[in-house]
């Protein structure tokens, strides 16, 4: 067994081509791929980091964005600790799709929340903020607030802006949630239903940043 204390499952969703895979590769491998083929189904990345002297392992599920794949990828929401919904600040179209993605989150991650008494951490990310924008920052912030996202951030996978910070904040929130609810102990198995969960309803974390 490896020496990590927490293992969290993070699922990235959002329209095709918004940069989900580039975001994950920037974080997990420190690279920005020049050519990144479309993700088919789901890809996996693992990255460990230290949060307050505690080793945390993030298991990142990078899902395909195209509509045709949703019936497959939706089944992966259920056991996630965190869902990152990504849009492209340069693409109004990707922003306009967010309400549908939010409905999917409620429908496919919602059952799990009710079932085991925890809330999935909902994060909204506007990627490609190095480009000219079509989506104003304040509109996106408002959207995140109105739709109960726990965290909102703009990132640039190309310029490595806010990428590390994004995943670090997610890890910190997840660790603090688990420490609050379990007194620091939890199951290390994250697969399917074996996760040891808090019964405490979580509040909005109010940690909006930009």
């Amino acid at each position: 067994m490896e020496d990590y204390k927490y293992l969290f499952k993070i699922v990235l969703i959002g329209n095709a081509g918004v940069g989900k895979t580039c975001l994950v590769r920037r974080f997990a491998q420190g690279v920005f791929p020049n050519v990144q083929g479309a993700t088919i189904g789901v890809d996996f990345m693992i990255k460990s980091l230290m949060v307050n002297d505690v080793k945390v392992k993030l298991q990142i599920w990078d899902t395909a964005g195209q509509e045709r794949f949703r019936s497959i990828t939706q089944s992966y929401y259920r056991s996630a600790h965190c869902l990152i919904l990504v849009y492209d600040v340069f693409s109004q179209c990707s922003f306009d799709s967010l309400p549908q993605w939010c409905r999917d989150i409620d429908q496919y991650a919602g059952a799990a929340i009710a079932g085991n008494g925890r809330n999935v951490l909902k994060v909204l990310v506007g990627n490609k903020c190095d480009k000219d924008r079509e989506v104003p920052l304040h509109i996106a912030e408002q959207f995140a607030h109105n739709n109960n996202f726990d965290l909102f951030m703009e990132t640039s996978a190309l310029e490595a802006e806010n990428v590390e910070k994004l995943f670090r904040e997610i890890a910190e929130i997840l660790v603090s949630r688990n420490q609050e609810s379990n007194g620091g102990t939890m199951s290390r198995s994250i697969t399917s239903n074996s996760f040891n969960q808090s019964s405490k309803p979580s509040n909005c974390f109010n940690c909006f940043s930009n």
Partner: protein
Amino acid sequence: MSSTKQAMMDNKLIKFKKLIYQDEVTDLNELRSMAWAGVPPSVRHVTWKLLLGYLPVVREKRAAALARKRSDYQHYVEQYYNNNRCPDDEIWRQIHIDIPRMQPLVSIFQQEIVQRIFQRILYIYSIRHPASGYVQGMNDLVIPFFVVYLSEFMPTHSLSELDHVNVSTLSEEVLQGVEADSFWSLNKLLDSIQDNYTFAQPGIQSLVHLLSRVMSRIDSKLHNHLSSNNVNYLLFSFRWMNNLLIRELPLRCIIRLWDTYLAEGALTSSTANVSSSSTGSTLTSSLLESSNLTITNNSLGNGSPFAASFHLYVCAAFLRYWSKNLLQENDFQGLILYLQNLPTFHWGDNEVELLVADAYSLKETFTPNHLLSS
């Protein structure tokens, strides 16, 4: 290369040339059985077109048939692409995003002229097939056809050299021909596996389920190891089905694999009474009956130019090829990362030939009784 081997290859090429270019009527059964073991690169383009049923077997009819199909395609380009395309079309936008980021030939897809060719092929396909539309992965399926048909005009170039060819140096007529032939070949291929790309992708879901059933019989140790670590087959083999292994193997291997696929698929299409093909379909239907799945024949590619049922056995052979390495991985993450990055980069014809031989033996020895017992 030894002189004996060279002589065998020369001899093989002479046989292909005789069948294709000298006989009045090409004997398709003979061509299939020869192509199954690999097609010499210099006659691959015409062999594939014959095996797909795109070129007539009667030699003197070929030129006219080709001219007609190419002209039909030019009409589609006018009708669907040049005149009626909505600039905000979502499908067009998606295709537009996907083409420049295609692999494995990186350089060639940066050329605008090539991007346009792929965009037209995929866009017109999607408009003419609204039930599936364009699904990511279809772009990959065009690559082998495009590369093989292009290589007809670059006979001295190897695959890796082809990546650096300046495509715009070829004449417009040549490129239009390559484009039209690639389009019609893609149609032939996708017609046989359309259920893989319609809503909820039922064809793929069935194939993934069948793969799991087959593996439980042929390598129960690996099968149990995967399931005890919660590695669901869908997680890694969805892409194997959606992209027909193109993401898992080097392109040179895919092209060699498709020699066999096209030979194998054609075998099941025009000779319905060939016993091996009926074994395949009986097997799959009994697997399906026992698992309460419903499926149309179409999604398995039976009776089609591209037998997806053979692809199923290739996937099973492919998975068990890695069995020893996978059994050494002892958790979910180790397994899934290995399965998503299988070390095939050094693979060549030898590995593919082992794979198809194993797949063939699985197909031949797997009887419905094996699957229904225990």
